[in-house]
């Protein structure tokens, strides 16, 4: 049967309707957000997370090839927060131009970290070997300390951190993840 608008009028059963949104994805999400490069924009983004009770796991902000636009890369735990609600609230910020929720398989994520370790003697060789395995670099050496630089995914940095802990890790600095889409498409 055809209706007046020309479409079919096959009946719909309410039992067949499903609500698909509002669920938690259960995984980490890397949100790559283009924002206007204006004062206070980061505060608006961060304030939104606070106000709505969302946690930011990591955050990195940097310029783009357009002076008027900055990129915020942040990671959110999709097990704790409904990611569609997070992105929809972000979209309401007037200064937010574009949001991309990067799929882990379709993107590359990197973080840079610096580790300061107090070691000397034979243990120094041992820790430098670990650094090699993680493709890290020694960027500073003193009589009783070494500073390593490592880049990689958050998981790799965390693994390196675990390996170094027994050696007298003094401190660690992490940048937070940045990410880029694979293939030709722009992020």
């Amino acid at each position: 049967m055809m209706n007046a608008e020309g479409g079919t009028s096959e009946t719909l059963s309410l039992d067949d309707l499903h609500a698909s949104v509002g669920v938690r994805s259960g995984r980490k999400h890397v949100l790559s957000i283009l924002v206007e490069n204006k004062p206070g924009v980061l505060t608006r983004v961060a304030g939104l997370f606070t106000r709505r009770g969302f946690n930011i796991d990591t955050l990195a902000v940097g310029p783009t090839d357009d002076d008027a636009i900055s990129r915020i890369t942040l990671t959110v735990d999709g097990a704790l927060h409904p990611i569609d609600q997070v992105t929809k609230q972000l979209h309401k910020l007037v200064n937010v131009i574009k949001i991309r929720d990067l799929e882990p398989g379709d993107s590359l994520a990197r973080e840079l970290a610096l580790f300061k370790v107090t070691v000397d003697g034979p243990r120094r060789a041992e820790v430098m070997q670990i650094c090699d395995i993680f493709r890290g670099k020694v960027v500073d050496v003193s009589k009783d300390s070494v500073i390593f630089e490592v880049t990689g995914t958050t998981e790799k940095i965390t693994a390196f951190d675990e390996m170094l802990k027994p050696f007298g890790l003094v401190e660690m600095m992490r940048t937070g993840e940045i990410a880029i889409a694979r293939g030709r498409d722009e992020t």
Partner: protein
Amino acid sequence: MRAVDAIMECLKAEGVEVVFGLPGGANLPTYDAFVDSEIKHILVRHEAGGGHAAEGYAKATGKVGVAFGTSGPGATNLVTPIVDAMMDSVPVVFMTGQIRSDLLGTDGFQEADTIGITMPGVKHSFMVTDANDIPRTIHEAFYIARSGRPGPVVVDIPVDISRADIDYEPVMEVSLPGYQPNVEGNAKQIRQAAKALAAAKRPVLYVGGGVVLGDASEELRALAASDRFPVTSTLMGLGSFPSEGPQWLGMLGMHGTRAANYSMDQADLICAIGARFDDRITGKLDEFAPHAKFIHIDVDPAEISKNVPAHIPIVGDVKSILPHLTSEYRALGADSTRLDDWLAKIEGWKKEFPLTYTDTDDNEIRPQYMVEAVYEATGGNAIVCSDVGQHQMWTAQYYHFPEPRRWINSGGLGTMGFGLPAAMGAKIGCPDQDVVLIAGDGSIQMNMQELAACSQEGIDVKVLIMNNGCLGMVRQWQELFWEKRYSHVDMGDYPDFVKLAEAYGATGVRLTDKSTLVDDLRSAIATPGPVVVDVRVTEEENVYPMISPGMPARDMVG
């Protein structure tokens, strides 16, 4: 041209008729421009009064309200109206003065971080750092305030910037790359919604303030008339559907009717239109409308599935979506008799559980009776404003609003003190209509000072105080949920509202006699100029029925 004269030009271009505000050090240049401007300015006695007046103006007219304040305390006094406007999606532009740019961050005299303080409560805000940006910024502010889901926008201008001269050229268009507010409803989704309505045996249209804000009352009525769909409304949506007739269920939620709440509880399909499933509507969320599938129509995508997962989401402007939905539904030629059982059930609830109260034989005035008397005295045709509390709920229950934009109150934030300034703004926006304020004796004292502005400017508002001598809603909760341990709710016999009215240059009347109440109210409302009517009502009266906090809607009491 002086930047401040450019501000006046921009306001004129935006169609601004009136600004509510109060001058101070940091907005002296702007106030100088008012001297030669055609734009009317109402001098309020407290910035919060100005902010709420701008809200009342916006709610009554649908236009953007404008409130001005100076830096520091002027701006912080605007915080409550700003957040109030955010919660109820009211289009208002707030322009605040700021201290000199070179003093920013030094804790200068009357410095406050206005942008920072207001950030969580605005739709957007601007700090102007270059005088040449003033015109464009003002137009962007108005555009953002009124488009999409409306809301408050703050424009903060340091005093040295507003003192500058600029080359003013009218701004024709705005450029906001991250802001695309106007969305057409998805045609496929609309068709799906029509099919769901046709399949539903127990449908309910649940409408909210978005229908009023979107000026879609006619379109809603047409949808409801396409079959015999029962309609319920939130507090903010009252008036968008006529408050009478077989399809009207009454208001829903905490103090809604049993017919409305039971219908939601039993429905198999709920079509939410410009409503946001607030906790005062749903009661216990897990047990809200357990049998229902949801169509959710809203201009704000973030409202979809925020509290209740939507089965058929439709994002867009209600005014354009509803006619599509209506014609799609009509085209399906659904068999209306499928609703017979459902409508019979609803009719049963309406008959069994009407809104009612126990009147007394003596002359004491029951608060519910007072609202009925106001309805009669105004012929049901006034713009009715309220404050927040029991009187607000009774007004929502017993004043039957026939049209949208006749009911002006603070819903989301629940701001006591909203009423009097809002009534001022409504009267200025709609000078040909009667504007009455039903206020509580607690609420009215929170912005009573604006009576001075009403008297000075001849703003003809009728303030009807429902005086029970206490903070009634808090008293009710202490009675019901805190074992009658009354803590700081008694307000005594203070102040003498009649004398206070006279001190403010208004007419003051006290009414205590039920038998003449309607006539007395009628003559008070007919008295020219601002009038304050102190109506003494029963103290220990509760708003019923009620969904107790955290309980499901089907467990209504009272």
